[in-house]
């Protein structure tokens, strides 16, 4: 890896061959974070390795605190954020779960911590492969959440994450999910923007009169009873609702400053005239897009919708992209055992978003790629085929299909 100071870098930035984890580390340096906390767990730990190298090389000056557990790791950034430090943290799988107490209150206290979840299956059994249930555990708590699918998107989204999270209209933490191995450990050419442009995009974190400081004596998180808590929850709800416009604003500025053309909430791939659309998050976009191209070559009108942001849920974009389809198939790299239709989390959300769309679009649920299992072309074609059947029958198929699960050999 080459390290150059901002002065040497051309305004257009530079291209580097880096992994998703490295891209996040680069974003940390560009955002000039103040405090980062580390505790090793695969695949998240790779970010820590790259960050410590950036610090050792003098490319980033920040407090790098190695905690004794994930719980402390998240507690430390929570407190650092309260005193006005820009923070970065992260974990994976059960490590993220171990920190859940701190994670839950970070949103309640409206602290704009940015975290990377290197998505990993919850062990036991010991497993490094990708599943999304780790990140999804916080979906109801007031965290902004998104899934990235490339190294470039990881870097871009991290910069956007601090900008949105630290906006005084929002002040909510943001979890960036990156599929373990597929993204965290795969190197791609990434354009690293110039620090001077980043400074124009990302103002310093200013907590105003909410900042914990001896000159600004405030009580944070007092004991409250039933007379207070509901109003506080309502405030968090209002902040989450406001975040939608703040995200849109951030993408507009991002595109203007960095000469890019990102869409804020979703990526639509050949959905324009599609009769059958699959929906998913993260790196499974790649095999599905390949399948879309193959099937299009055969004249089938298929498309793919990738959700970039999951909280706030992009309801208008989802409705708009899917309302003209004859059927929709939702791919979950997660599970929600015992839920309606025994389906996955994403499918329930998409179904709910489509409930009021007239005429109602049939929805099929797929659980696929658990534990990092590859979503192959045959699997992708199978999902399109099943969704096409729903399109023909015009009715939702409520059985939830597990794709790629091994059946007994006769």
């Amino acid at each position, binding site marked *: 890896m080459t390290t150059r100071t901002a002065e040497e870098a051309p305004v257009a930035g530079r291209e580097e061959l880096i992994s998703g984890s490295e891209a996040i580390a680069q974003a940390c340096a560009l955002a000039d974070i103040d405090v980062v906390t580390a505790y090793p767990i695969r695949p998240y730990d790779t970010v820590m390795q790259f960050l410590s190298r950036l610090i050792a090389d003098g490319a980033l000056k920040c407090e790098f605190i190695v905690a004794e557990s994930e719980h402390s790791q998240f507690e430390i950034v929570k407190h650092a954020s309260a005193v006005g430090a820009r923070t970065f943290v992260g974990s994976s799988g059960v490590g993220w779960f171990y920190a859940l107490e701190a994670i839950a209150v970070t949103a*309640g*206290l*409206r*602290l704009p911590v940015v975290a990377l979840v290197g998505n990993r299956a919850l062990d036991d059994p010991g497993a490094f492969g990708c599943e999304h249930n780790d990140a999804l555990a916080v979906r109801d708590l007031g965290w902004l959440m998104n899934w990235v699918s490339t190294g470039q998107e990881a870097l871009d989204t991290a910069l956007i994450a601090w900008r949105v999270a630290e906006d005084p209209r929002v*002040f909510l933490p943001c979890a960036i999910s990156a599929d373990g191995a597929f993204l965290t450990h795969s190197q791609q050419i990434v354009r690293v923007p110039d620090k001077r442009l980043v400074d124009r995009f990302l103002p310093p974190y200013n907590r105003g*009169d*909410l900042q914990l400081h*001896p*000159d*600004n*004596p*405030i*009580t*944070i*998180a*007092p*004991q*409250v*009873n*039933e*007379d*207070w808590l*509901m*109003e*506080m929850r*309502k*405030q968090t709800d*209002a*902040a989450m609702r406001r975040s939608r416009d703040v995200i849109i604003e951030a993408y507009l500025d991002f595109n203007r400053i960095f000469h890019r053309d990102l869409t804020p909430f979703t990526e639509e791939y050949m959905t324009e005239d599609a009769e059958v659309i699959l929906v998913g998050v993260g790196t499974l976009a790649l095999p599905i897009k390949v399948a879309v191209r193959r099937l299009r070559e055969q004249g089938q009108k298929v498309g793919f919708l990738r959700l970039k942001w999951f909280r706030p849920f992009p309801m208008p974009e989802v409705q708009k992209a899917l309302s003209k389809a004859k059927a929709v198939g939702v791919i979950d790299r997660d599970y929600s055992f015992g839920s309606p239709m025994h389906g996955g989390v994403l499918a329930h959300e998409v179904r709910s978003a489509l409930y009021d769309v007239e005429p109602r679009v049939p929805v099929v649920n797929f659980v696929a790629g658990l534990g990092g299992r590859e979503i192959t072309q045959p699997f992708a074609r199978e999902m399109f085929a099943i969704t096409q059947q729903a399109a023909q029958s015009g009715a939702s198929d409520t059985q939830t299909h597990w794709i790629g699960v091994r059946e007994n050999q006769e």
Partner: protein
Amino acid sequence: MTTYAVEVVYRGIFQRTLSRNICRGIVLAAHKGGKIGTAFGRYGDSPERNGIPAKYFAVVADDQLELEESLAKYEPKEVDVTICVDDTLCKGVESWAWYGLQPINALTKEGGALLVTSKQAADALLEDIHRKGMPYRLAIVSGPASFSGLWVYKDDHTDVRILGALARVCPGLVSMEAYEQVIQEIWSNEAKVRSARRSYDQTRVRPVEPAEGNTSVPFSFTKPGWTQMREALTIVGVPQGAGFRGGQGGFQPARSEVFKKFSTRTMRPIVNFQTCTKCTLCWLQCPDSCFDVTPDGRYDANLEACCGCGVCADVCPVADCVTMVNEAHFNDNSSQYDWFQRDKDGYLRWLTETVAQQKGEQRSHGFHHWGQYKEEIAAAAAASEAGHDN
């Protein structure tokens, strides 16, 4: 259909078992008479904090359906009897969360009763108890609050004496005979049954006129709507750095004005400004930044903020310079330093007397000599025998 509700206002942790025993005694005794009831705690977090005012309730109804009308509520909106098991709580109650000061008789019904364990007379208590504006009744169970610092008098019979007095002030709820039966069943202790009966016989009820009581307005504030509340669970404090009470000279420490702690206090520190060497220890060690630094370098405890923990008295290196004394003797939170400034001799005379009197008093932060517990149990029994002149 007659539902009876009783609340017990108590000091968190120390008196929780006492309050639970009282409320369970009520419900079990009522059940003997064919009624049905419930006993439950409120205003305590779990675990409760030392001395923080908390409440226990007993609700008794004629049948299950009637009881459900009460169960559907968070707590009773009014009670037939308020039982106050530490007389310093008569100054008012601030719950463990963020409320303002609730008068001790806030939930007491018109014509209902307030039952207090105290060594004070009714008139003295009424200097603390806020004016109700409607008639009710006051009764006293003679004796100290059944705890001392972290120590609890578990066998001073306060629980059953309260039940006996309750049969007197609220005869419609449960008969004395039913209480006696239940006390025998729970504790298998004839002495306890006798204590309850004696309390029943001795309890006198004093009517309280609507205009009687402490006329000061209890600290309160309007709860803001969710858009008016500051974001992120933050509450503004008083900044440090200005002079004494915002004026010239001295020092104002940072502190929250919203969370007043005084209703947690059973003892308060009194300071001898004459012998104080200005060593700063009380100021530095007070966990609640209570001490305002005066322009002449002395330390005045802000008694709205003081929770009465006793740390200042423990750390003060000068003998009898900071002394913890019974909170029950005071009717307000006014500044000791102001008094000292106004009338040095008068203040010091009062201080010397009060410190001397404290040495002979039972109220203390814990036990200070071997056998103190036994002595105090005996004294409580004697007080109970002697009865109380209302």
